[in-house]
């Protein structure tokens, strides 16, 4: 694989000036945010690069697992941060669903799909990117789904309570909102699968091609990745939403609407 020189990276970095000029010309007042975003891109990715290099060279489970755990926790926290209406237990729900879904799918990928021995010699080289891609998509699915769930429940609170008064179980009262939430969480990945390859090439595939891989091999990896991501997102989203449902509807078939609080309306 050909390396990039630091000069090359610097040239690319200077391209951000284009956005800066646009911001200035149209008075978007985005200069600060743009600068911050650019800085974060450079700093975060550099750190990741060095950490990964260290972990890759170690070939040790005890450096790999904590890193994977850290990534998982960050994903779990990030998914809740994007949810506007929250309820007690949402952090635990999110972490649990992210952890189980992403680790299960990554495990299946490593042991059942990739299979060959190369990954066992350098587990980090395979596990980290796989987990990362699954986590990134799962956290989007969970945050979209949880947002939709609490929005639906609050908007349709009277209708849900009506169903309960007419003798609906908690599941019968909530399942439309749950379906809607799961659908919403799955939209990005389904849409992504619809157009993949037609408009843009996914990052992973682009990376492989730039690094000199055979396109067909790259495509095979990409297909596997798409399904892994879809499975992880589906599992994580369904898990988080069902756990949320159990928090908000108790065994006495009561809708605990008071437990939902809006993080933005607090004055």
């Amino acid at each position: 694989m050909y390396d990039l020189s630091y000069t090359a990276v610097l040239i690319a970095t200077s391209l951000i000036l284009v956005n800066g000029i646009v911001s200035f010309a149209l008075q978007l007042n985005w200069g600060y945010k743009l600068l911050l975003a650019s800085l974060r891109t450079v700093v975060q990715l550099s750190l990741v690069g060095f950490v990964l290099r260290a972990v890759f060279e170690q070939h040790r489970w005890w450096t790999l697992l904590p890193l994977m755990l850290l990534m998982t926790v960050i994903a779990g926290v990030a998914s809740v941060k994007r949810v506007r209406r929250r309820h007690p237990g949402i952090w635990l729900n999110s972490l649990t669903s992210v952890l189980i879904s992403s680790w299960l799918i990554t495990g299946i990928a490593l042991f059942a799909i990739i299979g060959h021995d190369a990954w066992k010699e350098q587990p980090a080289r395979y596990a980290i990117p796989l987990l990362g891609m699954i986590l990134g998509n799962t956290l989007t699915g969970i945050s979209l789904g949880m947002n939709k769930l609490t929005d639906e429940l609050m908007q349709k609170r009277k209708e849900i309570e009506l169903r309960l008064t007419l003798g609906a179980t908690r599941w019968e009262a909530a399942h439309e909102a749950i379906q809607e939430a799961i659908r919403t969480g799955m939209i990005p990945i389904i849409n992504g699968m619809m157009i993949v390859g037609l408009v843009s090439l996914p990052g992973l595939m682009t990376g492989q091609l730039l690094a000199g891989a055979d396109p067909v091999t790259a495509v095979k990896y990409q297909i596997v990745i798409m399904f892994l991501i879809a499975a992880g997102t589906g599992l994580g989203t369904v898990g988080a939403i069902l756990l949320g449902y159990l928090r908000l509807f108790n065994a006495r078939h009561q809708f605990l609407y008071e437990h939902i609080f809006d993080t933005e309306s607090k004055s």
Partner: protein
Amino acid sequence: MFPLVEAIQIGRESQTGKVLLSDVSFSVNAGDQVALTGANGSGKSVCLRALSMLDPIQTGDVRWREKSVANSDMPAFRRDVHYVQQTPAMISGTVIRNLIYPYALSHAPDKNGSTSEDSVRRRAKLMLDRLDWDVTLLDQDAQHLSGGEAQVVGLIRALLISPSVLLLDEPTAAMSEMTAEATESLLINWTTEHPEQRAFVWVSHRESQIDRFATRRIEMTAGQIEEVSLDV
């Protein structure tokens, strides 16, 4: 008289710690036509909702026919001790679909009875006739009803599932004078036809209306109740 439902020292606080109900005890006996009165915010709706166990209570118990309600009996309990929302919510679709909805649930009422759309239509028509309303209401879109129409549909939907106790939250507030009076006599007839197994608790602000229906009166102040004797 046989208590259909009883509140035993029930208490409830909001998430912020405000006392909504405090040590409320009363029973609704068969044949009762209870007027529940009190200022806005005194806890009348909270009380009715607690009685049909829509909200969790922190203290006390609600007893149904002298027993505590098991979790698995909750759907049957809520149909029997049935809370009617002040502005009844509608599920999407026509009015008739709203009336049939309870029969599509896993714990549907009278499984052995006739629950076809035709039979629901026929029974609904009987009630509409008594209110002097047109049967075309049944095929209207339930999302576009006026406040009064929604209250009529809500009551018919409630009566069709054969409850024992109706918990009515200002059920005629949005109705015209004429419909309100017809509704009053429909509900009074409903209990007096079977006083051994039916009762209602009715939140009302209209004294003239209370005079017409009430056999008991309970006054709420700041989450507490007091039985008021009626001058007969």
